[in-house]
């Protein structure tokens, strides 16, 4: 690729486009919530909303993790400039998935929530993953990046264990047909594997 977008192009063209695209799943969910075009949420709307937000949370985690390898691939650093926004979208979808569980599925029933987090291993894993993501979202700003200096990059490596926990969380809640979950696990394995491979060669 010879085309290298300049700073202004990234800021005023590419970023807004990516923003709109990343909002699209949420917008479509709103269409379904209000049953526009008869799209609806089906007979089990709570499960539909929760699963939809969860899968998009995972997808954006994987998209965020794909940015660095993409930059290596095209040997240009500019995609890195999209990483923060994509990471924050990932966090937003994950948080909404959690809130859907908390408010819609559990109706904020505190005792049921605590017992589920402790007793259900796949929910424990999801909770751990979300807890790992919170400091990353909080320290995603330029200010924190400067304040933390070299430690910032180390802190943000927490996304790797978080992503592993999320895939495990997904895999574990499937009743029987795990093929979709395994495909997402395979994509994550590839994205982490390529980092290890790169390190070896340095």
């Amino acid at each position, binding site marked *: 690729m010879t085309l290298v977008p300049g700073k202004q192009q990234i800021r005023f063209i590419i970023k807004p486009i990516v923003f709109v695209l990343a909002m*699209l*799943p949420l917008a*479509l969910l709103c*269409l*379904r*919530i209000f049953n526009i*075009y*008869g*799209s*609806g*949420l*089906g*007979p*089990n*709307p*709570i*499960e539909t*909303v929760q*699963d*939809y937000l969860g*899968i*998009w949370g995972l997808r954006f985690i994987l998209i965020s993790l794909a940015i660095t390898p993409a930059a290596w691939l095209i040997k240009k650093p500019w995609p890195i400039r999209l990483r923060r926004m994509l990471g924050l979208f990932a966090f937003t979808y994950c948080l909404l998935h959690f809130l859907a569980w908390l408010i*819609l*599925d559990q*109706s904020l*029933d505190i005792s*049921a929530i605590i*017992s*589920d987090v402790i*007793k*259900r*291993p*796949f929910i424990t894993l999801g909770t751990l993953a979300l807890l790992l993501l919170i400091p990353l979202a909080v320290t995603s700003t330029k200010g924190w990046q400067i304040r933390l200096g070299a430690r910032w990059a180390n802190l943000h490596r927490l996304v790797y264990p978080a992503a592993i926990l999320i895939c495990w969380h997904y895999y*574990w*809640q499937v*009743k*029987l*047909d795990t*093929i*979709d979950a395994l*495909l997402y696990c395979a994509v994550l394995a590839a994205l982490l594997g390529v980092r290890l491979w790169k390190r070896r060669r340095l």
Partner: protein
Amino acid sequence: MLIRVKQKSTPAPSEIASEAEYQNRRSFIRSMGFVGASTLLGGTACAQENPPETRSLGPLLKSQYSTDQTVNSYADVTQYNNFYEFGTGKEDPYEYSGQFKPLPWSVRIEGAADITGDFSYEDIIQSHALEERIYRMRCVEAWSMVIPWVGIPLADVLKRFKPTSNAKYVSFETVYRPSQMPGQRRPILDWPYREGLTIEEAMNPLTILAVGVFGKSLPNQNGAPLRLVVPWKYGFKSIKSINKIGFTETQPATTWNDAGAYEYGFYANVNPEVDHPRWSQARERRIGGGLFDAKQPTLMFNGYADEVAGLYSGLDLQRNF
């Protein structure tokens, strides 16, 4: 009971176009996040455009066993199903069961009975009066519905074959037709699907052989033409599209128990006190509610304890789950 039969009328071309457009938009919006590999691997079966007409079943007897709880909508009952023979997604049975031919049908009766052999659907059903049974249905996945089944007591059917004193259990098998059942082309479960009951459970007056829902014959996705309904057990016990019934002396192998004995027992009685290893069974989501509906508590034996608790006196239900 009067049942209105849908008028067959040819839609105007403009109606067809708008319906197709509507479906396209709908499926695009829905597919954002829902078409997974399992759906794609389901085979080449095309989506169900015109579900085969179901037949009206005529006058039905009322039953003392029917609940007066609000019945789920026809859409809930026919578009949210677990029937892995047509795919593992909840909408797959509705979408991919259009190729299935439920009639003509024959059922093999075998094992410890005086009368065995192959019997047609009509042989099995014709001499019985059809009843409406409005039952709660509780899935092992912690959701539930209220469904107006049409059927006959299983006991009345089984007695006609004169089971012998060796008949301690009854086994059931779903038809194996991968050409018409795309889910069977993947080895998700050990096909054909098998289920079983003790003879006492099979003879309990709550247990029915269902042939319809909402006063009409069963749609394919609900287990046409003939299925079991055992309302105090998790839904997977209520085996669909049955083409084999056997009387056995020993406990028959059952599909979900084979797939994971630690998670799915032979009895599979609804029990709020025995959790599935990966989720709680204490509460359930009643299908058909809105986004802010709370779960409701699950009842012992799905609320049928008066009728069936006696079957299990002396049995440790924590261990025999």
